[in-house]
């Protein structure tokens, strides 16, 4: 693992003119290659906005974003990242296989290459026999796996995930967590993962970034030094609980709207 900076964010601020909302204020963040970083915070803390700024889907009002040594814009044009949303956002009119192949089509891959890669990805997310199905024939969890397969199909260095398992039940979510980790370890990508769930954030990440709302700011960062590979047993590790508690404390004290008298650390 090289220690190049994959994502570097400096002084990013985002104000939405409508309603005069400051979604992000003075965000500084640096991520090295191969990290798995979770963004966590209460509603309105700007975590999804930050993700979209990194992906050049929203323009920051101020500050710079560097992805893979380029501007966010260039990184998007060069397709350096894959994105997974909370809804699977699959195209109803395409089969599962064709959905996964979508970015590959856009990259101009030829049919043979696409077919081979799609099969690989289907195996990776364990949906091997569902290639010819349509999205509506799949459960929510399966649809989300297709969405992940699609995001990874062109092997981007960076994976942006916006509460991808938020709509699923806990058991499916825990299972997909394990799958995601194994995929991450196999491919060695860098992941930025937005979530509401403290336990999920700690379980998955190398680092948890806690954000506070109004205006959106980084309240603190907690390194997660749990051993890898993580498994179901990790959730019963006492150190896991310590970390979860630490995140929760940080959220409680600093994740809330700061009163005028309080000063940020």
């Amino acid at each position, binding site marked *: 693992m090289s220690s190049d900076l994959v994502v570097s964010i400096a002084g990013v601020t985002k104000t939405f003119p409508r309603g005069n909302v400051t979604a992000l204020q003075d965000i500084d963040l640096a991520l090295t290659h191969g990290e798995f970083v979770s963004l966590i915070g209460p509603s309105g803390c700007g975590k999804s906005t930050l993700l979209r700024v990194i992906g050049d*889907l929203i323009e920051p009002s101020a500050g710079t974003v560097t992805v893979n040594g380029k501007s966010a814009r260039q990184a998007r044009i060069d397709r350096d*990242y894959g994105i997974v949303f909370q809804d699977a956002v699959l195209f109803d009119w395409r089969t599962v296989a064709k959905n996964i192949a979508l970015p590959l089509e856009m990259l101009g891959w030829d049919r043979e290459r696409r077919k081979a890669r799609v099969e690989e990805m289907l195996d990776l997310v364990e949906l091997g026999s569902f290639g010819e199905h349509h999205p509506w024939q799949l459960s929510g969890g399966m649809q989300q796996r297709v969405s992940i397969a699609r995001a990874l199909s062109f092997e981007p260095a960076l994976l942006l995930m916006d509460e991808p398992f938020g709509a699923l039940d806990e058991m499916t979510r825990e299972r997909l967590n394990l799958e995601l980790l194994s995929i991450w370890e196999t491919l060695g990508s860098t992941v930025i993962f937005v979530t509401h769930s403290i336990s999920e954030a700690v379980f998955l990440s190398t680092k948890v970034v806690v954000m506070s709302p109004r205006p959106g700011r980084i309240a603190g960062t907690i390194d997660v030094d749990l051993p890898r590979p993580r498994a179901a047993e990790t959730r019963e590790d006492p150190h896991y609980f310590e970390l979860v508690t630490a995140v929760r404390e940080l959220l409680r004290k600093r994740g809330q709207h700061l009163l005028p008298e309080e000063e940020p650390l």
Partner: protein
Amino acid sequence: MNVALRRTGEWTPAIVVFVLAIAAWEGAIVAFHIQQFLLPKPSDIVSSFWTDRHTLWPAGWYTFKEALGGFAGGSLAGILVATLIGRFRTIGPAVMPLAIAANAIPIIAFAPIADVWFNPLSPVSKMAIAGVLCFLPVMVNTLRGLQRASPRQIELMRSYAASDLDIWRRVRIPTALPFVFTALKVSSVLAMIGAIVGEYFGGAFNALGVLIRSDAQILDFQTAWAGILVASLLGLALYGAVALLERIVVRWAPAARDS
């Protein structure tokens, strides 16, 4: 096999109703001595349908061609205009109220004008009327479909650095297709009606609408009804063809799925 059985089962009530209604119709006319010249017996209508087929069927085909021409022209125009409005979104808000107002205008007002502009004896005049009738529903619904593209899907495409053309091809058009087909089904029925309405104001003597009208005027309701049967069947045929096409092209749409 089970699906086929279930399907037939679903149609049973309709078939039963059909049989009962026809039987009641025949029976009532005989039993109550209803003046046959007003409401002929189904059996008489069917026999007229067959015996007069040498005039009725070619007339039906002639009118059907007019309807088809209007359907194709009007629908195409509707899709084109909707695409333009969808592409250049600034003209949208200006055009929509016009479209709504135009939708409220009784098209019947246009029929005599079409006859003036295009020779009343020429099929073009009837195609124009059918076309105008088809244009509006297709345009309005195509536009609605184009505007329904999910913002998340567009965001996804942007993450792939997709060009506007890509987004159109891969997201907007497929999203709009189910709406287009719904409108085409409505238009297919309107087209035939438009052609016949147009013929009422004057048309070639071998056109179906003209035939029905003249039959009714000489009080030959039996043949008139037979003519109406022809018109109805042709209208249904066009509708059926569009519905079939819809099944093939838009297999994923919820409507096609549930049916």
